[in-house]
């Protein structure tokens, strides 16, 4: 079968240490041989045109905003506010991580950047306070993947563009699911920490508390500016990413005074490289996306799923399970890029609301960043916090299960997405 060929070659190459982008090209070469349509132009053209899309211009800015937040001290101030509020509770650093993850998720679209910042600052503190590092890292990783669900999110932007539905609408619909994920993490963490003797931090007195909140305020208002601005129609999501960059620069340079010219230049270069790596990967995944279209795979899948077309909920469950499984072996971006064009027409045909589908589908894809062997958020947390990867993998499991349960709840009760969506919209 065509998909099997593709996935086997892809995984084989990745395991042999070939960079993922080249592994994708190699898998595409296998596809070309398999469908007997070999042409070098397929490779070149899809890599070049796959990224020649106006909407994708937002990607460098989302990455840049995250980079500037970390360099300009915004991320650190957010974590300090969360510390002041929850540091004294039993197992409090865990809640600090969850709250900080939520705030950062509503500022940046990058699970990688968020979990890197969280892990770099919080894991050393958690370690000192006697928290097991696997659990701690796992929690922060699971908190980090809220980023592509809460607005702003590139994945939602791309989904909206492909499905031709309102991106602002998608953003508004994804707020409650993002909050539910955080609530699930808090519940699991509370259960874990209920009778542990973890060291707690002193509760700051009221004056210190207000001082810390005051200092963090400029960082904390950004989510409201971004979400409010889009909600009120002041700017489009693409413009929001630019606003985020400008705001993070101004606050980092003038308020916190942690961002100087050199830091800004460094952020530009770093995010330029990161964006290039990412978009090169997007381009590489476009080759196989094109070949998959040519091989008429979408039609094959529609045919295979035809018996489910009459039961939208079953169909949805099948799609999400497939997404979760493929999420084990594919990186988030290629996964989304390969599946979106196949799944959107399918859901349209089955009369599944596309805004609702976009939210649950991207959530399923984001959870793939927590599943080995290809789980980038796990790798980042492991790397930044110097935790062994297998410890993180075990540590993240309860949180991953909790988030999958939330996903299942959203499938069983679509009202969880749609009712708050209709209030916000």
């Amino acid at each position, binding site marked *: 079968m065509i998909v099997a060929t593709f996935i086997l070659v892809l995984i084989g190459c990745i395991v042999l240490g070939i960079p993922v982008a080249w592994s994708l090209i190699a898998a595409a070469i296998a596809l070309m041989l398999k469908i007997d349509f070999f042409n070098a*132009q397929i490779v070149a053209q899809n890599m070049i*045109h796959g990224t020649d899309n106006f909407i994708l211009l937002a990607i460098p800015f989302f990455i840049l905003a995250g980079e500037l937040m970390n360099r300009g001290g915004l991320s650190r101030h957010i974590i300090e506010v969360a510390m002041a509020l929850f540091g004294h509770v039993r197992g409090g650093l865990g809640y600090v991580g969850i709250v900080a993850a939520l705030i950062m998720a509503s500022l940046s679209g990058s699970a990688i950047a968020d979990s890197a910042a969280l892990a770099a600052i919080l894991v050393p503190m958690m370690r000192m306070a006697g928290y097991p590092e696997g659990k701690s890292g796992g929690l922060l990783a699971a908190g980090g993947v809220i980023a592509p669900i809460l607005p702003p999110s590139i994945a939602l932007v791309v989904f909206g563009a492909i499905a031709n539905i309102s991106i602002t609408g998608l953003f508004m619909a994804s707020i409650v699911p993002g909050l539910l994920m955080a609530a699930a993490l808090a519940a699991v963490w509370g259960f874990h920490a209920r009778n542990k003797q973890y060291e707690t931090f002193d509760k700051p007195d009221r004056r210190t508390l207000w001082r810390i909140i005051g200092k963090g305020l400029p960082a904390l208002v950004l989510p409201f500016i971004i979400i409010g601005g889009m909600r009120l129609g002041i700017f489009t999501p693409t413009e929001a990413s630019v606003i985020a960059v400008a705001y993070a620069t101004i606050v980092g340079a003038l308020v916190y005074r942690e961002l100087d010219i050199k830091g800004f230049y460094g952020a530009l270069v770093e995010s330029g490289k990161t964006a290039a790596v990412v978009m090169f990967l997007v381009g590489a995944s476009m080759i196989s996306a094109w070949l998959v279209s040519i091989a008429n795979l979408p039609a094959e899948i529609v045919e295979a799923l035809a018996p489910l077309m009459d039961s939208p909920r079953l169909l949805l469950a099948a799609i999400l399970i497939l997404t979760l499984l493929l999420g084990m072996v594919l990186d988030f971006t290629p996964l989304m890029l390969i599946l979106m064009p196949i799944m959107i027409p399918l859901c349209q045909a089955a009369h599944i609301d596309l805004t609702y589908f976009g939210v649950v589908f991207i959530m399923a894809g984001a959870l793939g960043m927590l599943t080995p062997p290809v789980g980038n958020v796990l790798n980042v947390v492991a790397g930044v916090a110097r935790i062994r990867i297998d410890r993180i993998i075990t540590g993240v499991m309860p949180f991953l299960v909790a988030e999958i349960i939330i996903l299942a709840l959203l499938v069983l009760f679509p009202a969880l997405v749609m009712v708050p969506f209709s209030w916000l919209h």
Partner: protein
Amino acid sequence: RDIKVGHFGAPGKAFDQGVQVFIDKLDELSNGEMTATDYPGGQLGNESQEIASLRGGLQEVFITSSTNMIRFSPKFQLIDLPFLFDNDAEADKVLLGPIGDDILGGLDGTGLHGLTFWDNGFRDLSNSQHPITQLSDFEGLDFRVIGEPIFVDTFKALGANPVPLPFPEIYSALETGTVDGQDNPLLTVRDVNFFEVQDYLTDSKHAYSAMVVLVGQPFWNQLSDAQKAIVQQAAEEAGQAQRQIMRKAVSGAKAFLAGKGGMEVDSFDAAARKAIRKAVQPVIDGVINDDNRDLYQQIQQTLSDMRQPS
């Protein structure tokens, strides 16, 4: 080999049904020797990629807006002139005759070969502010336009503020009020749900939206003369059927938008239309030059023959 037919129509919608007719005709006329597959909704890539695929021999057929051919041959600009055609019959008469062939011939040597024109309906106006029934109503409105100079200039001449935006951004731009209005064929207004965020529709017919059926030169060169004739005939016959499908769908869409869609539908009266035509005349004058004046006069001649039957 299998002929890949790419286009941007949504799967199963009116435009796609026309493509299905084309595929069936190819099969029928070639006695099953030529098989084709439909790739709707831009499955084979965006505009520039499908063009590149055609020229590079990766893809065989691509059906796209004639506006996109302007960069290959300036002759295609004439089709987009504001208020050129008054109705479907006029557009068909010009585009399906020798003038249309002349325009398609402008693609020679570009790696593309134009088979025939298909129909995408007239572009009409919609906006969220107030009914547009006369020239002064355009004043101060932000309109999303295609990023081609002729559309930008037309809306400037009408007194509106043209804002070029890529197609996928239109809905959210309308929704958030970044722009007040847009112009697209009625089918698009319905199928892309613009009616949810727009209240006023004007049956303006201010520009005709022609589609062109393209084949790549590498593919075309491989065909025998007999095969070329089959492909040509299939495209033309499917074009006839496609026009009927589209036009039936357009009247359905209009009824829907005025009814369930909840839009107020207006039109220009004769005096308003005259004033508006006058306002955009400089745009037309700006496009006509020594290279295309002859062709433009032929179009006008054909149209006036039709309008005043002897």
